[in-house]
C-alpha cells in the first residue's frame, strides 16, 4: 500500500513537470511547422527538379519517397543554437532575439507601516539588481521623514532577499507595528504585490521578501551561453583541466575504448566462431554468453573496481567484457547465417575444411561482425564515460563529473558535446569502413 502511494506521488510529480513543459513543446512544434511553410513558399521560386522522387504523385505512405530534408536538418540545428542563445542571453544573438531576461538595474517600492494605535507612515525601498558575478553594495539612501525610514537592498540577478525594513524604523515589529500595504496596495503576511522590478512578498512574520523578475532565461549555472561553453573549450584545450590537457582526457577515454574493444574482438570473434561451428562449444558457452549478454556492463563497474581498482586495468577489463559478448554473438550469428548451399557448393568444388573456413565462412560472417563491432564500439564508448564518472584520474567522464561538483556547467556541457561528437565520429568511421571492406553486405 505504502509503495503504491509513493509511486503514485512520483507519477503525479512527473506528470506535473510534463504539464509545465507542454507550452514549450507546442511552441517548438509550431516553429517546425512555421519553417516548413516558409520552405514550401521558398521552394516555389527555386527551379523545380524533375528527378524520379519529385515526380511521384503518391508520396504519403510511400516509404521510399520520404528522404531526410537537408534544409530541415540545417534549420533544426541552427534553431537549437538560436534557442540556446535566446534563452541564455547570448552575445552572439542581437538582443531583440533574447527571451525576456532577469531584471537588472534599479527599482523601488514603498511600504506602509501601521502601528497598533493607528498611526501609519510610508517609506521607500531602493532595489538594485546587478549582473551575476559583479559585487555591488546596497546604496546609501536618505532616511526621509516619519517614523518609517527609507531602505535599500542590492541583489544579484536571479536572487531574492528578505529585507528587515523595520530595523531602522522608529517603531518596528518589536512594538507590533506591521506592514499593511506595498505601493499602496493592501497586503497581509503571505501575500504578494507586483512591482516594476518583479514582486514583493510578505513573509509569514511580515517581513518583505524582494523577488526581482527572473524572466524566462536560464541562469548561467544551469545553462551557460554558447559562447561561454566555447570559451571554456578553448581555455581547457590550451590550459587543460585538473592537471591534464583536453586532448589527454579525451585521448585516455579513446585509448581505453580501443584497447578494450580490440581485446574483446580478439577473444570474442574466435569464441563466436567456435560456437557457430561446434556443438560442444555451442553447448559449453551458450549459457555463459546468454547470461552475460543481458547484464549491462555498467552493472559490472562496482565489481571491477573491487577486483582491479580504478586504474587502467579495471577500465580495460570492463570494456573488454562489454565488447566480448557482443562480438561473440555477432560472430556466432555470422557463422550460423551462412547459406548451406554456399558451403555445399564449396565442398563440391573441392575445398577442404580450412579452405571453406577461409574462403566461405569468414567472408560470409564479416558483415555481421561489422554490425557487431559498431554496436560494441557504441556500448564501449558509453561504458567508458560511465566508468570514468564513477572513478578515474583522467578521461572525458571524469572531467564532467568533477566539473559538476564545482557547478561548472559550461565544462559539463562542453564535455557532453565532445562525447557526443566523438561517439558520432566513431560510428561514422565504422560505417565507412564497413562500406569499404564488406561491400557485399546484404547482397547475398
Amino acid at each position: 500500500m505504502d509503495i503504491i502511494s509513493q509511486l503514485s506521488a512520483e507519477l503525479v510529480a512527473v506528470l506535473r513537470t510534463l504539464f509545465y513543459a507542454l507550452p514549450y513543446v507546442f511552441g517548438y512544434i509550431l516553429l517546425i511547422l512555421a519553417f516548413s511553410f516558409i520552405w514550401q513558399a521558398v521552394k516555389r521560386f527555386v527551379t523545380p527538379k524533375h528527378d524520379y522522387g519529385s515526380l511521384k504523385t503518391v508520396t504519403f505512405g510511400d516509404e521510399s519517397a520520404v528522404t531526410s530534408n537537408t534544409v530541415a536538418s540545417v534549420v533544426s540545428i541552427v534553431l537549437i543554437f538560436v534557442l540556446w542563445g535566446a534563452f541564455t542571453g547570448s552575445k552572439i544573438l542581437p538582443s531583440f532575439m533574447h527571451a525576456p531576461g532577469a531584471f537588472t538595474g534599479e527599482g523601488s517600492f514603498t511600504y506602509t507601516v501601521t502601528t497598533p494605535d493607528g498611526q501609519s507612515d510610508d517609506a521607500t525601498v531602493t532595489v538594485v539588481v546587478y549582473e551575476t558575478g559583479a559585487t555591488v553594495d546596497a546604496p546609501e539612501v536618505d532616511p526621509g521623514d516619519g517614523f518609517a525610514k527609507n531602505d535599500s537592498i542590492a541583489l544579484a540577478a536571479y536572487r531574492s532577499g528578505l529585507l528587515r525594513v523595520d530595523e531602522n524604523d522608529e517603531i518596528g515589529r518589536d512594538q507590533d507595528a506591521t506592514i499593511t500595504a506595498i505601493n499602496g496596495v493592501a497586503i497581509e503576511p503571505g501575500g504578494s504585490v507586483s512591482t516594476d522590478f518583479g514582486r514583493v512578498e510578505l513573509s509569514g512574520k511580515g517581513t518583505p521578501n524582494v523577488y526581482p523578475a527572473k524572466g524566462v532565461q536560464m541562469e548561467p549555472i544551469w545553462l551557460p551561453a554558447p559562447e561561454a561553453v566555447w570559451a571554456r573549450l578553448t581555455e581547457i584545450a590550451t590550459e587543460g583541466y585538473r592537471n591534464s590537457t583536453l586532448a589527454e582526457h579525451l585521448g585516455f577515454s579513446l585509448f581505453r575504448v580501443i584497447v578494450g574493444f580490440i581485446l574483446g574482438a580478439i577473444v570474442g570473434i574466435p569464441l563466436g566462431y567456435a560456437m557457430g561451428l561446434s556443438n560442444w562449444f555451442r553447448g559449453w558457452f551458450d549459457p555463459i554468453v546468454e547470461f552475460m549478454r543481458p547484464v549491462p556492463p555498467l552493472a559490472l563497474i562496482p565489481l571491477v573496481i573491487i577486483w582491479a581498482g580504478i586504474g587502467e586495468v579495471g577500465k580495460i577489463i570492463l570494456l573488454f567484457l562489454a565488447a566480448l559478448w557482443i562480438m561473440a554473438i555477432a560472430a556466432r550469428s555470422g557463422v550460423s547465417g551462412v547459406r548451406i548451399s554456399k558451403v555445399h557448393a564449396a565442398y563440391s568444388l573441392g575445398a577442404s575444411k580450412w579452405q571453406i573456413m577461409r574462403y566461405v565462412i569468414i567472408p560470409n560472417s564479416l558483415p555481421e561482425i561489422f554490425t557487431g563491432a559498431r554496436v560494441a564500439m557504441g556500448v564501449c564508448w558509453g561504458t567508458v564515460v560511465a566508468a570514468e564518472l564513477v572513478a578515474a584520474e583522467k578521461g572525458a567522464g571524469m572531467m564532467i563529473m568533477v566539473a559538476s561538483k564545482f557547478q561548472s556547467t559550461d565544462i559539463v556541457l562542453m564535455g557532453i558535446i565532445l562525447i557526443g561528437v566523438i561517439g558520432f565520429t566513431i560510428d561514422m568511421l565504422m560505417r565507412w569502413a564497413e562500406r569499404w571492406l564488406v561491400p557485399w553486405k546484404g547482397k547475398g
Partner: protein
Amino acid sequence: MSGLQIDNISMRFDLPNGSSVQALKDVSLDLKAGELLSVLGPSGCGKTTLLNIVAGFLAPTEGKIVLNGNTVHGPGAERGMVFQQGALFEWMSVRENVGFGPKMKGMAQGQKREIVDHLLDVVGLSDFKEKAVYELSGGMQQRVALARCLANEPDVILMDEPLGALDALTREKMQGLVLKLWKETGKTIILITHSVEEALLLGERLLVMAPRPGRIHKEYRLPFAEMGVDQDLRFVKKEPQFAEVREEILGMIWDMEEEIMGRKEGA
C-alpha cells in the same frame, strides 16, 4: 567401370516427433558417362534428396552411389553442383567465383586465368569478369554458376532446378546453353526440373518419380535433346511426338498430385 550407379538407394528421415518420412525407397539407376538425365516429379517426391545423396551431402540409409568404380562417401570435386540460386560467393568477383575450383586445387595463376577466360567466353560473360556477382541479373548469375562448375572439370554435373528462378525467355536461352555445353564437354548431367517441357528438351533420358515413398515411376528415352543440339528449341517443341509425350507425362503427374491431395483430404 565408368559411369554413375545409383544402387538401391533408400532414405528415411527420423523426425523429432518420433515419426519418420520415407523420402526414397529402392531407387536404382545406371547412368553411362556422357548421358543427360532429367528428373521430374511432384513436389516432395525426393528429387532434391536423391541429388544430395549423389552429391554426397547426405548419406543414404540404404544402398550406395558408385562413380567410376568408387563408392561415394561425401562431397567431391568430381561431382559438381549447380544450385537454383544463391550459391555464388557474393564477396568474390565473377572471375574469382569461376576460378574457385582451380584455386582450391592450387592451380598455377596463368593456367587458372586461361580456364576462367575461356569459360566466361563460352557462357557469354567476358565483359563482366571484374563485376561483383550481385551486380548481375539472375540469368547471368546462373551462367556464372554453370561456368564455376565447369571450371572444376567434374565428371558429373548435378543441377537442382538451375533455371527455376528465371523468366521464360532467359530460361529458353539457358536451356540451349546447357545442351551446347553437354555436347561440347561430354559430361554426365543430372538435371532436376519442375517444367515438363524442360525435362523433355534436356533429357536424353527422363525419369518420372512418384511420391510417398519417393521412387522411380517411369523412365523414358527421348530424342529431343539430341535434336536440340543443332536445332532451334522452338522447332523441337513443335514435333508431334513432343506434344504426345508431354501430354502423357502431364497426365501422369496430375494423377499423382490428385492422389496426394485426395489422400490428404481423406486423412
